């Protein structure tokens, strides 16, 4: 018989994630959305753990929830004007938007369920003990060059942020 824990946690976390997500896109107050997003991210990190990806989970928590979201919160504080709280939070095309997006999502889900057999169920047991090390070898091995480029990407991000945000260079 299949283990019950896995499905249970899966559904629980998914529920948290989705609820978080829904909150993100529905809250009027950006701060609330940000907090909801953090919740989602954390839940996702947990799911990563379920998928034997502890390192990604760590990155998710530290970098995402820890770094990016803080940045977000700062900016929200910076640009937060009460005006937004008084106005409607959806634009005038929201209905069409929702419909289109839903159709897209529906299609995707339908496709995945139809193409289930594409992904045969042989969960290759992956030892998570040396996960981090192996990721390191990947990063500094085959993906070394990409890794360098990624560093450039961050450099650009810094320059960009500075150029854009700083009053005078």
């Amino acid at each position, binding site marked *: 018989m299949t283990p019950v824990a896995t499905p249970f946690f899966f559904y629980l976390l998914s529920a948290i994630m989705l609820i978080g997500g829904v909150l993100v896109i529905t809250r009027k107050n950006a701060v609330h959305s940000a907090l909801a997003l953090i919740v989602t991210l954390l839940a996702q990190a947990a799911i990563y753990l379920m998928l034997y990806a502890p390192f990604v989970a760590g990155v998710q928590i530290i970098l995402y929830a820890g770094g990016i979201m803080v940045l977000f919160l700062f900016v929200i504080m910076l640009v937060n004007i009460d005006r937004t709280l008084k106005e409607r939070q959806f634009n005038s*095309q*929201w*209905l069409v938007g929702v419909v289109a997006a839903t*159709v897209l999502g529906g*299609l995707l889900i339908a496709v995945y369920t139809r193409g289930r057999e594409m992904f045969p169920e042989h969960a290759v047991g992956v030892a998570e003990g040396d996960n981090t090390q192996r990721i390191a070898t990947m990063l500094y091995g085959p993906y070394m060059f990409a890794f360098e480029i990624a560093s450039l990407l961050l450099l650009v991000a810094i320059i960009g942020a500075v150029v854009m945000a700083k009053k005078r260079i």
Partner: protein
Amino acid sequence: MFLSHIWLIPLFPAFGAAVMFFFGRKLQKATVSAVCVGTIALAFVMACGAARQYSAWSSTEEHYHRPYQTILYTWLGTDTGHLTYTTHDGTQAPFRADAGFLLDPLSSIWLLFVTGVGLLIHIYSTGYMAHEGGYYRFFGYLNLFMFSMLTLILANNYVLLFVGWEGVGLCSYLLIGFYFHRKSASDAAAKAFIVNRIGDAGFILGMFFIAWYFGSLRFTEVTHLAHSGQFAIGDPIITAATLLLFVGACGKSAQIPLYVWLPDAMEGPTPVSALIHAATMVTAGVYMIARSNALFVLAPKSMLVVAIVGAVTAIFAASIGLVQNDIKRVLAYSTVSQLGYMFLALGVGAFAAGVFHVFTHAFFKALLFLGAGSVIHAMSGEQDMRNMGDLHGRIPTTHWTMFIATLAIAGIFPFAGFFSKDAILWEAYSREGGAYRVLWGVGYVTALMTAFYMFRLMYLTFHGRPRMSHNVEHHIHESPVSMTGPLVALALCAIVAGWLGWPNSLGGVDRFTKFVEPVFQPEARVLQQEGKTEQLVQGVEEEKNTKTEWLLMGLSVAAAFAGWGMAWRSYRHADKGYVEPIAAASAPVYNLLLHKYYVDEGYDYVFTGRRKLGSQRLGVLGMGGACAWIDVKVIDGLVNFVGRFTRVFATLSSWWDKWIIDGIGVNGPAILARMLSYPARLLEWGLVQWYALVMTAGLVGFVFYYVYH
């Protein structure tokens, strides 16, 4: 020496014209007249020499009765003749036209009287135009005309003939429009040219039919083939060709329905009317048909048409002539009617008679016009006979010469007109079939009318009471010798010219017919083959019915005297406000004739469209207007529409983005939103999320298409 250089004959006047064109402006009048008259004189001398030499040449055994032709160079097409076209029987014929000249009795006759009369008229003009402006221009045009006319006469093929044909048309255009500052003159000129052009269109088509059928346009070859007997009499193509040629002739020789230009052409200076519109150019049609007699005898239907048209024109024009008051117009209509006579002659197969009438007519009609010119000269420009009268004493030479001419045209023995006109009537009468009798009747009545209106002219002009204003009366004087001289010379011709054709029935030998006989002889042969011996042109069996001929002669002379008598009765004592007998008889008829049967008006309404019928232009101008409208509105409209459509479509597509895409995207839900009682701003353009939405929609569309098709 003359004969081998006949091509020089047209070139003399051409040279004169060229001199006028380049230097005329700077030359003295004396020099001008010297050059122009001189060239014509040279041409005349050449012509006489050539004619003499030819008669000698053609009487030799080896070229007995052959036309003489000399070819300068290939004008159209190439010597190799590899530019070809397919004839009716599928063989290849070369596309070619020579600059070649041909002399035979027919052309030599024309050559002689054209150069002769032309010379006289040139001399006359030196006097008549002495005080006009544009002297050199006038003589340049005259010489150019002589060049074209001589080319026409001497051409050895239809195309070159057409060159002359168009050339004389052009010159008559230029000369009619000589007083171009007069609107009436320029109108008349344009009218003449365009009407002629219509005829020419027919001529061209006729030529093409001949070329298509005979594979050549040389007279010699065409005639030869026509005589070769390989074409049936009444062959449809030949009939069509001949009819089309006749259309051309109608244009040039002012036959119904294309005669309308000739009366208006009187706007030109009088010598022009004399030379072009009486003596020479207008007979070109006759020449052309006589030239293609070989074809016409193969097309009896066309012959009949020619005869009928000729007869109708004759009586029609004559009837108009009865009541005209402008001296030159009377002569113009008489010309038309005389031309009708000639065509009647051709139509009944009496080519010789027709040519003979052309010959005589050239002299007395030129004389009449020149006389009229002299009268107008004396009357200081007055042309209306109602304001003349009693001139016989004042300008005797003019009077007597014109009187001779009148006798001649009226056909009174033994003046020129008598012989030619009588020959025609006799031929018409002697043809089998009732139709020809009718034609004869028409001709006869016409003769009567002719006599009447000519004597009417004489009496109104020279007799009766003087009706002119006093200062005009003061200036009346006989014209200078340069003008009277030609009159006298022509008068002599008007008397003797006819004697060349003194009929056998009156014990003559009819030299004229004998001379031109070779040209028409072959028809005789053809007709013989057809077993219609009795219709032979030369009177083979006058003996049989000399009596009839005498009777007819008597009748026509009687008619002439009758006309004279009537004119004498009504106009002898014509004073101011005299009554026209016809007006007295029936006013409506008189008006109808006075307005020339309203033909010009009819044409303007129906064909040219120069006059609007109601608010609507008909005719060519109407069509032109319609086409112009179509061009701007429909075709170009279509083009612009396409352009505008794209623009509209483009704005639409931007509009589409603006309203439909953003609109339905934005407004649609906004309206929904309103229903859901949402406050919604209506238009939001350039909304980023809208772009995102379009992308998503596109993606959705593709996925949907590919997954579920």
